[in-house]
């Protein structure tokens, strides 16, 4: 009973309700559009939404890395640029080894993929080193600087060119972008992979001692340090993992962008990663958030974008605007609710006191 109660009060439950309400609104719109003759067939149904989640789950891996950083009370705005640099590395390495041959080379692709993941991790390591070494600087500023650095480095490597690979070996990366057919459903491959990783992250963050320490750092890093926790070491590795996850995201992006690599391929994508984590309950204050909440948030963003895009024919920019609105509301609503609850409690107490005083008199 206690458990049910605390679940009903939880942020995750609120997100589920939010998601349900959205689905309901879209469903009704869908039906009314058919009734009005604006469309012939229903658009907003489970299989269709699931299929269309593909682009929205691309950055989900970045969100996983961002959770670690936010849980520690830090922020990393360079993850998009890390993804780009990793992917550019992948392209350049592959180009150098395999060149533009007809069949490509699986060995070259393997090396290029390793280089991509390595560069992502190294970028994260640079962030981690700077953040733990220069504690007087805000991680926001440090990662702003490294973001520019990584972007600049990407341009240095390939300039404004687009590297496109036509060989089947490189093109096999786009299989990361295909739809799995399970029963009558088509599931983007990124979703099961994300879910598998999310389970790992869930147990790590919420069940292991190490995960507890990550949240402890975000709650009060000085006290955590005095408790004998290796704060700097944990921080460093979390940044490395965030960098690694950006590189993973990057590989999915290559698959998505018709096997071509550009120096701005993932610019700005850190914003979606941060947004999903924040809606999921993580905050730059650190110390809170849940993997489940962030996962639901990813779904919410997908549903909103799909619904607004197809049913209301919102252009992409307007969809971003609505994501922003959801985010602001998600921060404001809990505060308002708490405010109202407090006021009610005070009023209750006052009434009691007045009664007591009246009784005394």
């Amino acid at each position, binding site marked *: 009973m206690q458990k049910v109660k605390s679940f009903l009060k939880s942020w995750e439950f609120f997100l589920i309700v939010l998601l349900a309400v959205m689905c309901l609104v879209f469903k009704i719109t869908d039906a009314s559009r058919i009734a009005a003759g604006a469309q012939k067939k229903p658009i907003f149904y489970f299989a269709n939404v699931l299929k269309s989640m593909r682009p929205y789950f691309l950055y989900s891996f970045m969100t996983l890395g961002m959770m670690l950083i936010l849980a520690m009370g830090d922020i990393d705005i360079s993850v998009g640029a890390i993804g780009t640099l990793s992917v550019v590395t992948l392209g350049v390495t592959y180009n150098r080894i395999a060149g533009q041959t007809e069949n490509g080379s699986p060995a070259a692709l393997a090396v290029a993929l390793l280089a991509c993941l390595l560069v992502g991790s190294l970028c994260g390591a640079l962030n981690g080193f700077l953040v733990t070494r220069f504690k007087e600087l805000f991680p926001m500023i440090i990662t702003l600087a490294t973001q520019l650095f990584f972007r600049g480095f990407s341009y240095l490597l390939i300039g404004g060119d687009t590297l496109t690979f036509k060989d089947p070996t490189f093109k096999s990366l786009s299989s990361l972008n295909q739809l799995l057919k399970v029963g009558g459903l088509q599931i983007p491959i990124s979703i099961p992979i994300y879910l598998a990783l999310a389970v790992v992250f869930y*147990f790590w963050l919420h*069940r*292991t*001692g*190490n995960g*507890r*320490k990550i949240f*402890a750092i975000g*709650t*009060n890093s*000085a*006290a*955590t*340090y*005095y*408790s*004998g*926790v*290796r704060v700097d070491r944990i921080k460093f590795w979390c940044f490395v993992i965030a960098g690694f996850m950006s590189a993973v995201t990057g590989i999915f992006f290559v698959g998505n962008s018709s096997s071509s690599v550009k120096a701005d391929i993932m610019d700005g994508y850190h914003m979606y990663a941060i947004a999903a984590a924040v809606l999921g309950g993580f905050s730059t204050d650190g*110390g809170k958030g849940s993997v489940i909440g962030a996962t639901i948030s990813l779904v919410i963003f997908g549903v909103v974008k799909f619904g607004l895009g197809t049913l209301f024919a919102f252009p992409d920019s307007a969809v971003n605007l609505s994501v922003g609105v959801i985010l602001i509301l998600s921060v404001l609503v809990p505060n308002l609710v708490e405010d109202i*609850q*407090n006021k009610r*409690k*005070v009023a209750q*107490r*006052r009434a009691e*006191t007045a009664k007591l*005083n009246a009784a005394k008199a």
Partner: protein
Amino acid sequence: MPGSEYILEMNGITKIFPGVKALDNVHFNLKAGEIHALVGENGAGKSTFIKTLTGVHQPDGGEIILNGEKVVMTDPITAQERGIAAIYQHAASYPDLSVAENIFIGHEFKIGPFIDWPKMNREAKKLLDSIDANLSPTASVGSLTVGQQQLVEIAKALSMNAKILIMDEPTASLSQREAEDLYTIARRLRDQGVGIILISHRFEDIFGLADRVTVFRDAQYIGTWKLEEVDQPFLVHHMVGREITQLFPKKETVVGEELLKLEHLTRTGFYRDINMTVRSGEIVGLTGLVGAGRTEVMESVFGVTKPDSGRIIFRGEEVKDQTPTQMMARGLGMLPENRQKEGLLLAWSINHNISLSVLNKCQDGIFINRGKEYELSNKMKELLAIKAPNTDTHTGALSGGNQQKVVVAKQLAAEPQVIILDEPTKGVDVGSKAAIYEIMSDLASQGLGILMISSELPEVINMSDRIYVMSEGKVTKEFTDTKSLTQDDILHAAMPQSK
């Protein structure tokens, strides 16, 4: 009420917060030219009471009468304009601004829209001179000692022609010498007709300064007395609501092997040539003025900072490149001075706080075993008699004394051989003080070595088996016989030699 002898009367003040009645029909009055102490345990409502006077909180009941006129303190600015000023324990308001800027903040001297710097610095100097504070108006406040910062705050109060001055734990962060200086200034202000409300846990402050004393307990008004009518046990009794038979329960212990030994430890600019030992079963006091380098030595021992030279020998082994993680594993515990910032995760429960330093003991493989975790924290809660409904209670909701017990519990959970306590009773009320002393005694009798850094001379003298006194980064004196020691003996050794 014209002709009333009081400049301030607060009658029947009630304040309700969500879930808690912080003040329940309390009274207080103040005459011009008197120092009126307000005492009570943490959570008794003193701070809330002061905040209703300074306009930070609006009372839910009762009246404030200022100079015979009923007033409503809508906000802190109104209170300021009516001549009420407050100085706090952690004084500096704007550490990056200059002394003059701090004094005149909000009412700067201006020429048109521009600040009249020469005049402001001149006026600041005048105010500082009037309280014998030899400070430069252009110095940045962050570079001053806490004691000097408080002088700046007093000058600020004077600049606003304060008729009522609230001093909230003014001496908590001060050395004995600085506290004496503050006493002198407080007396002078009183003689000039300022009414002073003094909040303090230190009986020296109360008996040394106050004319009258009011006691709050559990948000209730207990009584007001003239100081000559009361003594310390009487006040303690009313504050705690029960008799405290023995404040310093020192047990006889068997002093055993040497656990911690410092040889010629030096960190340039902080301390130099420190030689110290802590043995099993011993409580060693480390005292001196604030800034003498006491905390800095112990931070190096705990591995927070690195000494430049010298040796640290812990349980017979020389330690090098120490980190807190490593020292805790070796059996050293440290209770930092600032328990809210460095000791506790206030947003976390007692349970999670206690287990944080020993998570590996509460794990099956890499996963936390909640059963083991609760078992540990419940055991600790019972052992240290932490007052809370259960171990799921947030530490932020606990009183200062109970918070301190949680920090101790956290250290004890790691089963240390030596434990360093930095100002363990700072800001802790008298009931909890006795409890913490008892815990220390128990630990020593179980064979732990305890090193207590403290500025509270009564506790240093009464609890320690041996005392080191530091001054200007050096150990100036070691007292091995504490039985007949007086505060003057210690103060003499603690004074900088250059003065």
